[in-house]
């Protein structure tokens, strides 16, 4: 490297600039002879000042300034958050709590929604559940005979390889108990009913296909009656004597979980023993329905096929009766929509309050930072850079608060005690919903942008020299 320094002698007493002013011109020649190390300049109060020549080079803005601008803004923002952590922490408690509340209500809403969904599915089956009733004769005004209907439906099940199907017989029987004779509502179903209707057992087990072989039919009873029986240990094979068309001793193998308005005696058994025990004497009019749990996207097509088959099997004058009754078939808005709106409204209100607090604090803070902003402007910060940096401070802070808020919300929502409180008996507890985390983080970033907007506009209007001399 060779350094060439040209300096015209300046007139010591010159009062106006001469035509030839002192100049410094440095050139670098790769591979050239190394210049001697510049000697230390006269010390100022013992300071060693090492000469340098590279400063005289007119600098050029290198490429990649966009990347360095973005990184620089984030570094600036993070420094500001770090340095003023106490203030930031205090201002962000509101946002953190708001985001936590938002994520919690959305997350808890998902759990509650799942409980609601399961409740609908317990009552009406999972989507898509096709209900097939015996065809109705427009001539005789009677339903088809159950035997013919069952034979036809069994053929349909085989034809379309329907994996989950169950008959639903409804009838009644009387039960001899220590309190005397009691009325019992009886349902005859298949083992698949347990999956199709999310049967939730508090004690014991659900019916299985093997139970068809039992001489003493297996039954599942409701919790209320089980309590009345004194909660006998199912391992002792407690029995009930059922009287209808026939009298039989049935063995209790399972107990349903407690449900609201669960009173009296409700029991379920497989359809085979139902037909032999309850028979025509106990069966209700129109008490037979078949249910198929089929893929939702195929349900309409399958329903049409079944209707066509019924029509061809029973002939003219018979009206097939196939329909969906699961909660997704009800039409109109989702039954969970009102709940979601309420939860979203509460969460939005909470976040709005947090944002207002942050805007307030940010505006006050910028007023205190006028001098600092002026100094930054003097050292080359553009208005857009100051705007972006002040905005980023807000965004960085709120996103950090958002992450902490979401983490806390996950801990809260996944707490078993809370889950039991908001969704007792829910079977498929959903994981913390990703959309809740994303919504909360997105909301926190949006709040950061909104809360940072006004302070950033104030910061941009700072007059540099006035700010420095402020």
């Amino acid at each position, binding site marked *: 490297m060779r350094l060439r320094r040209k300096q015209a002698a300046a007139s010591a007493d010159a009062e106006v600039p001469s035509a030839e002013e002192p100049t410094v011109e440095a050139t670098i020649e790769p591979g050239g002879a190394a210049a001697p190390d510049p000697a230390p300049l006269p010390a100022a109060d013992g300071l060693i*000042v090492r000469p340098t020549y590279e400063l005289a080079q007119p600098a050029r803005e290198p490429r990649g300034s966009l990347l360095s601008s973005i990184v620089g803004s984030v570094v600036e923002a993070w420094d500001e958050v770090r340095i003023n952590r106490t203030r930031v922490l205090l201002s962000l408690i509101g946002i953190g709590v708001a985001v936590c509340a938002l994520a919690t209500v959305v997350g808890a809403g998902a759990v509650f929604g799942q409980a609601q969904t399961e409740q609908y599915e317990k009552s009406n089956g999972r989507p898509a559940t096709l209900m097939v009733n015996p065809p109705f004769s427009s001539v005789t005004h009677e339903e088809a005979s159950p035997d013919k209907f069952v034979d036809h439906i069994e053929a349909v099940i085989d034809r379309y390889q329907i994996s989950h199907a169950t008959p639903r017989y409804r009838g009644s029987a009387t039960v001899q108990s220590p309190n005397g004779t009691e009325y019992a509502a009886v349902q005859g179903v298949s083992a698949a009913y347990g999956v199709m209707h999310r049967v939730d057992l508090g004690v014991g087990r659900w019916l299985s296909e093997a139970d068809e072989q039992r001489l003493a039919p297996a039954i599942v009873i409701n919790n209320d009656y089980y309590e009345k029986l004194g909660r006998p240990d199912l391992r002792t094979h407690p029995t009930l004597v059922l009287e209808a068309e026939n009298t039989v001793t049935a063995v209790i193998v399972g107990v349903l979980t407690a449900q609201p308005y669960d009173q009296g005696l409700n029991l379920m058994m497989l359809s085979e023993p139902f037909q032999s025990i309850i028979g025509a004497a106990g069966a209700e009019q129109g008490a037979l329905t078949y249910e198929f749990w089929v893929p939702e996207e195929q349900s309409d097509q399958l329903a049409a096929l079944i209707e066509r088959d019924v029509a061809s099997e029973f002939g003219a004058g018979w009206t097939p009766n196939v329909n969906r009754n699961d909660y997704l078939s009800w039409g109109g808005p989702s039954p969970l929509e009102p709940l979601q709106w309420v939860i979203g409204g509460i969460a939005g209100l909470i976040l709005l309050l947090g944002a207002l607090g942050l805007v307030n604090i940010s505006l006050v803070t910028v007023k205190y930072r006028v001098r600092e902003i002026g100094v930054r402007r003097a050292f*080359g910060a553009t208005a857009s850079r100051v705007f972006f940096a002040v905005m980023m401070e807000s965004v960085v802070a709120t996103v950090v608060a958002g992450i902490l808020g979401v983490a806390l919300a996950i801990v809260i929502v996944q707490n078993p005690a809370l889950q039991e409180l908001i969704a007792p008996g829910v079977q498929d507890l959903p994981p913390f919903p990703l959309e809740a985390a994303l919504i909360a983080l997105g909301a926190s970033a949006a709040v950061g942008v909104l809360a940072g907007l006004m302070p950033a506009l104030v910061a941009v209007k700072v007059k540099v020299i006035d700010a420095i001399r402020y």
Partner: protein
Amino acid sequence: MPLLSLEGVTRSVELPDFSQLDILKGIDLDVAVGDHISIVGRSGSGKSTLLNLLGLIDNPTTGRILFDGEPLEKLSGGTRDRKRGRDVGFIFQQFNLLAGRTALENVMTPLLYASGRQFWRRRALAQEMLDRVGLSERMASMPDKLSGGEQQRVAIARALVRSPRLILADEPTGALDVETGATVMELLDNVAEQSGAALITITHDPNVAALARRHYRLDHGVLSPIDVNRMLATSLPEASL
């Protein structure tokens, strides 16, 4: 070609009664690389307004300012800001170090607005600069733990860390005692001379002004050359360094 030229620059403001106040009147000044200029003037003489113009912060009412021969009025605000960051270093009377940041972080601050090598090596460059002003042992110190002289040396390091070609020192010794002020000025003069940057010192102290090679007085908005020796001879003893 001069680094900075002011050609017939005026600056006026409108007062609340809609009358016009002429702060600067017909300023002509050429500043070359390596120049050292002092401008003295009383309070209200227009020094701050001139500083705004020299520092590419404000626009003249009439006349024009050329930087590297390029008229500033042609530059957009952002371009001018970037040019200021790259080519102009400010040293303030009250130091204006950023509170809550160490000496090193203060010196790194201008490099946040740089790009390329200067940006990515900002820590090393700031350390090097603090070393040059003799503060290598105080890099981690907060401004409120530094003496006045040390704070001004940090401010000098901060002003020079981006290798500006023009250094504007606004009353650089105004907040320092006489002895410390002399030391700081000597340092500033040396560093500016080594770097080849032009140094413009705005001061009301004739002794500080005397360190420059060209001397001007700003009086009622008019900039005129002065004989600093005559001014020193007439200045009060307590004003000397």
